[in-house]
C-alpha cells in the first residue's frame, strides 16, 4: 500500500529525513517511535503533503501512485488521514458543517452523491457512539475551546467519519490522561480492518499497551535504525532511547 524509498527531506536547508525506507501493507499497524527531534512529525507531514519541507531525494508510492505529486486534498480523497499532534482551531465553523464538507468532498471523488443532511447526521451519531465520543463536541466549532484531550478525541472521531485507508496518528497520545488514551486507542482498534493500515507515531510506549502494532520502528536522527516486532517497544520502555543512540 505504501512504499517509502530512501526519502530525504530538508527544512530551511537542514536535513531532517536522511533516507527513510518503509513498507506498509494492508491490515498492518506500524508504530514509529523515537526521541524528540528524530524526524517523526516531519515524516508524517511529508506523507500528508505539507509544504514547509523540501524533498531532496527518494520516492513515496501509495496505492501505485507517486504520492509526492498529489495535493494534500487528493491524498485525503485517496484515504490518507493525518491525526494531528496539535489539532487546529477554526472559530465559527461548526463541526457538523466541517465534517459534512469533508465527507461530501470524499464522496464526490468516489463518484457518489453527497449525503443528505438527515443521512449525514445519522452517520455522525453512529460514529460518535462507535468511538465513544461526547455529542457535545460535535455541536461546537472545530476544536475551538476544546481541551487537549477533547481535541485528540475529535481527531479520532473525524477518522471514524472518513474511514481512511491509511491513518497516520502523529503523537495522538501526547497530553492525554489514561482514560482519554483508552478512548483514543479503542477508536483506533475498532477502526482496524483487513484492508486498511495505520502508522502510529509515539514517543512513549504506553499507547502501545492499548494499540498492538505488528511492526515497531525506531526513528533516530532522520533514519530508521531498528525494526522489529511489538517486543521492541517493551525493550525501549525498559532501556530508554539512549540504548539506541549508543548502538547506532
Amino acid at each position, binding site marked *: 500500500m505504501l512504499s517509502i524509498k530512501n526519502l530525504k527531506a530538508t527544512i530551511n536547508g537542514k536535513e531532517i529525513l536522511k533516507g527513510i525506507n518503509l513498507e506498509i501493507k494492508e491490515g498492518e499497524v506500524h508504530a514509529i517511535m523515537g526521541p524528540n527531534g528524530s524526524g517523526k512529525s516531519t515524516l508524517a507531514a511529508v506523507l500528508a503533503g*505539507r*509544504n514547509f519541507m523540501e524533498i531532496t531525494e527518494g520516492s513515496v508510492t501509495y496505492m501505485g501512485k507517486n504520492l509526492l505529486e498529489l495535493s494534500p486534498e487528493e491524498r*485525503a480523497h485517496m484515504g490518507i488521514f493525518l491525526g494531528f499532534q496539535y*489539532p*487546529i482551531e*477554526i472559530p465559527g465553523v461548526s463541526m457538523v458543517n466541517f465534517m459534512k464538507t469533508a465527507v461530501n*468532498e470524499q464522496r464526490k471523488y468516489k463518484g457518489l452523491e453527497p449525503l443528505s443532511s438527515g443521512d449525514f447526521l445519522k452517520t455522525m451519531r453512529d460514529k460518535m457512539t462507535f468511538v465513544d465520543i461526547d455529542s457535545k463536541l460535535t455541536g461546537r466549532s472545530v476544536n475551538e475551546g476544546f481541551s487537549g484531550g477533547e481535541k485528540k478525541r475529535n481527531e479520532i472521531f473525524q477518522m471514524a467519519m472518513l474511514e481512511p485507508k491509511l491513518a497516520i496518528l502523529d503523537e495522538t497520545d501526547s497530553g492525554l490522561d489514561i482514560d482519554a488514551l483508552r478512548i483514543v486507542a479503542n477508536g483506533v482498534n475498532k477502526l482496524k480492518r483487513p484492508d486498511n493500515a495505520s502508522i502510529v507515531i509515539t514517543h512513549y510506549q504506553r499507547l502501545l499497551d492499548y494499540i498492538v502494532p505488528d511492526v515497531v520502528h525506531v526513528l533516530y536522527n532522520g533514519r530508521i535504525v531498528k525494526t522489529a516486532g511489538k517486543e521492541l517497544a517493551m525493550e525501549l520502555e525498559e532501556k530508554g532511547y539512549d540504548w539506541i543512540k549508543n548502538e547506532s
Partner: protein
Amino acid sequence: MPESDNIINDVTSSEYKYGFISDIESETFPTGIDEDIVRLISKKKGEPEFMLEWRLKAFNHWKKMKMPDWAHLQIPPINYRDIIFYAVPKQSAKYESLDEIDPEIKATFDKLGIPLEEQKKLSGVAVDAVFDSVSVKTTFKEALSEKGIIFCSMSEAVQNHRDLIKQYLGSVVPYTDNYFATLNSAVFSDGSFVYIPKGVRCPMELSTYFRINALNTGQFERTLIIADEGAYVSYLEGCTAPMRDESQLHAAVVEIVVMKDAEVKYSTVQNWYPGDKQGKGGIYNFVTKRGICKGENARLSWTQVETGSAVTWKYPSCILQGDNSYGEFFSVAVTNNYQQADTGTKMIHIGKNTKSRIVSKGISAGFSQNSYRGLVKVLKNATNARNFSQCDSLLLGDKCGAHTFPYIEADNASAILEHEATTSRIGEDQIFYCNQRGIKTEDAVGLIINGYAREVINQLPMEFAVEAQKLLQISLEGSVG
C-alpha cells in the same frame, strides 16, 4: 514562504457575475448639475411645490460644501459635470401590470434572481425593484395594503402620501447633513417608502433591489421607513451594477423613524461592481443611513454585508432618543484587489437606559484597505447608557490594510462602554487542516470566512443568509493567505 504567496495569489481571482449590461433604451438628462436639472427632475416627477423648494434649498447648500476628506480613502476627484443625474428606461412610468414592463428589464431582474412575478416570489418577500433612477415594480402591494402597510416607490409616496413625506422626509437626515446626503436631497430620483401603522407586524420581508444599468449615470435613491408605535418590519436591500471601466457614483440616503415599542431591522447585501483586478472602474458608494429610535423601547438593528463597490463610505447610525431604546449594528465588510472601504456606525445615546451593540467584521485581501470607523456618543442625560463594541479584522495576504478608528465621547459618568478588537490572519495551518480532510483551499477559505462572519450572517433573514455566504466566498476567491 513562497508557497503561501502562491496560494494568496491563486484564490482572489473570480469574476463579478452581475456585470452584464441590459440593452434598454433609456431617457437621460444632459450631464452635469445646475438648478435647471434639479427643477427638471422635480417637474418630470410631477412633484408638489414643497418638494421642489426642498430640493433647491439642498442644491444651493451643496454648492457651498466641499467633499469630506477625513475618511481613510483615496478617491480621485469626481467631476459632477460628467455625471448624468437622471436616467429612466424609456416607456417608463410605473408599471401597473407585469406585461407592461420592458421584457429586457424583467429579464435583467430574473437574471439577478429577483423575480417580479408574484407567484414566483422569493418566499414571503415583497420586492420594490429600482432600475437606474426609477422604481419599476413593487410586488405584493395589495396584500400589504390590507393591513394598512404602505410599501411603494418614493415617487408614488410623494404623490399619494404627502403628509407623511412632509412630516418625515429629512427629519433624520436633514438636507444640510453632509456633502453626499445634501447632493442626494437635491437630485434623488426614486427609492422605497415604507409605513407600518400602529401595532402592525409586517407579515413579510420587504425588500428593495437596486440596479444601475445606464452608462455614466449616478444613482441617487432615497429610502424612508416609518414604523409607528408597536410596529415591526424587517427590510432588506440588495444592489448590483454592470462592469464598466468608468467609475459610477452612488449617493443614497436612508432614513428610519422608529416610534415607541416599534422595531425595525434593516439589512443590506451590497454588491455593487467593485472594479476590476487593477482597480479600474467600480461604484463609488457614498451612503448616509440613519435611524432614530424616537419613543421608549424602540429598537433599530442594522445588518450589512458589504462586498462590492470600489469605494465604500457608509456609517449606518442609530439615534437612541427614547428611553430604554436599543440600537444594533452588525457588519461584514469585504475588500479585495484595490477596493477601499471606510465603514462603521454611530450610536448616539440620548435617552435613559439606552443600549447599543456593535459587531464589525472586516475582511481584507489583495491590495485593499478596510477601515472601521465608529462613534459611541453618550449625552449628558443618557443615564445608564451601555455599549458593547467588537471590531475584528481578518487579513488575507500581506499587501492589504485593516484599520480601526473607534471614537468614544461620554458626557455621563454612569455610562458603561466596552470595546474589544482583534486582528487575525487565516492561518496556513487552518487551510492545511481542511486540505488534509479533503477540502479544497477555496472551499476551506469559504468555510473559515463564513465561520468568522457567522455572528453577522446569522442576523440576516434566512434566504439572504445563504446568498450572503456564497457572496463572501465568491468575493474572496483567489485570496487565501
